[in-house]
């Protein structure tokens, strides 16, 4: 199966990446090339094979529920595009 321009627009919306009309066409062609290449995976019989999510089979390590981080708000906000009074600023979302 191959993607059409609407599919590309939907994927771009899900990924929160703005694409111009011209970019949508190039993107459609390139994504279809890549999907055509990975299509060969469909022909493999994987009945009964356990999916491998990680390179090494280990169980998730848990840590005690205690505070380990120090307050470094000023350091972390120094690299933010826009802050005020210790808060991150974004466009208004509630009218």
């Amino acid at each position: 199966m191959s993607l059409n321009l609407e599919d590309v627009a939907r994927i771009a919306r899900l990924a929160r990446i703005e694409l111009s009309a011209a970019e949508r066409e190039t993107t459609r062609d390139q994504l279809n090339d890549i999907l055509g290449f990975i299509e060969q995976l469909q022909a493999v019989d994987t009945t009964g094979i356990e999916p491998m999510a990680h390179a090494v089979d280990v169980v998730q390590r848990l840590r005690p529920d205690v505070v380990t981080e120090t307050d470094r708000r000023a350091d972390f906000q120094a690299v933010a595009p826009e802050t005020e009074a210790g808060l991150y600023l974004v466009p208004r979302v509630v009218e």
Partner: protein
Amino acid sequence: MSELINSSLRQLSAALAAKKVSAVELATLFLDRIDKFNPALNAFITLDRDKTLAQAQAADEKLRVGAGDTAISPLTGIPLGHKDIFCTKGWRTSCGSQMLANFVSPYDANVVEKLAGAGMVTLGKLNMDEFAMGSSNETSYFGPVKNPWDVSRVPGGSSGGSAAAIAARLTPAATGTDTGGSIRQPAALCGLTGLKPTYGVVSRYGMIAFASSLDQGGPMAKSAEDCALLLNAMAGFDPRDSTSLERPAEDYGRDLEKPLAGLKIGLPKEFFGAGMDDDVRAAVDAALAEYRKLGATTVEVQLPNSGLSVPAYYVIAPAEASSNLSRFDGVRYGYRAPEYDDLTEMYSRSRAQGFGAEVKRRILIGTYVLSHGYYDAYYLQAQKIRRLIAADFVEAFKECDVIMGPTSPSVAFAFGAKSADPVQMYLSDIYTISTNLAGLPGMSLPCGFGANNMPVGLQIIGNWFGEAKMLNVAHQYQKATDWHTRMPEGVK
């Protein structure tokens, strides 16, 4: 003094201990070479001479206090460069992207912390493919890195800056990361030695995430002996990385001097078929002949599913990348578009402008394969095939101690040769990707020169946690040959 640019780390360590050179003099030697040669190569993208010299002075102070001091390691006072994927406190950490072009990290990656703790001196940050997505260094926001062996050719990627800087003797060592071959392929294309450890050996804390189940940091240097010293300092359990493995500390150099008599080398027939250039084949065959002279025997092994590794990787890696890179939203750090009408537009425009073409392509592929209705067909199927690929290695290692083959199907190619065709570019990593999928350790070391006098890399794949064995196998070859000592003419 200038002969030190070709010294091994052990020789540099001895020169520092004997006070034949100071850490400040050594750092200055390399900083001056960077000033001279980097403009043509574009390997370093962030330098801070004052910071570097301050670190070197601190190292000299440690060395002055003297041997026996626990603060001194064999790496104290030796300079290195960090791939710009590693967060370095107070230094710009861009990951090769406009998205992070102004990001000065508020903390150090575990690897940076450990190497600094060992007394190493940071020369600067090294160029790379944007977010480590690329095999040629052409996707960097800061422009491509040039291969010091021929500046019309790519250095490989994504750790291309690290590779070019070592090849040009702008640094004796560098860090790299390898998600699908990003340490080994540039090491091969620039004539160096690079090692990707077993997944979980080196902490990923502070290493900007691309595909978390595959990403692994490792050393790049001129020789296996150097890589062993670096890995000793880089490896170890870190509770801040949930996939870091709790294992007893190892001396990765412990077996370097073991003779190779009786070594069984597995040669996967899938790695020696069509697709490998003749010049690469000739150099790899000659290396195998050398190994037989050193007492090793070769046996054919089979990795029947390895042909599926590139397509499986291009489902798994983009899927994980699409999730990891969702954090770049223009809110807490990174690029924010100058104009937008609402929050959604701020996100989507910041991401459209801040990311380059290849990164966006992979995020879109990843988003698609994880989306409703396609998850089972793509992502789950790829994960099942990943298990088949790993199981092939388990079988193969019943027949041999290490696996060998080419690192890359060709020597370094010209700029633009593959950049218009993503799938062709993806196939550059055809011999390296299966190692990442299985979580195995892998190395590349120089084994000769091919067409146009460009370096060829021999790949060694070890069994899980077989780093010391791989390093032994590589070191014995490097004692018998001198490919790893060659240096490009243009930077002499």
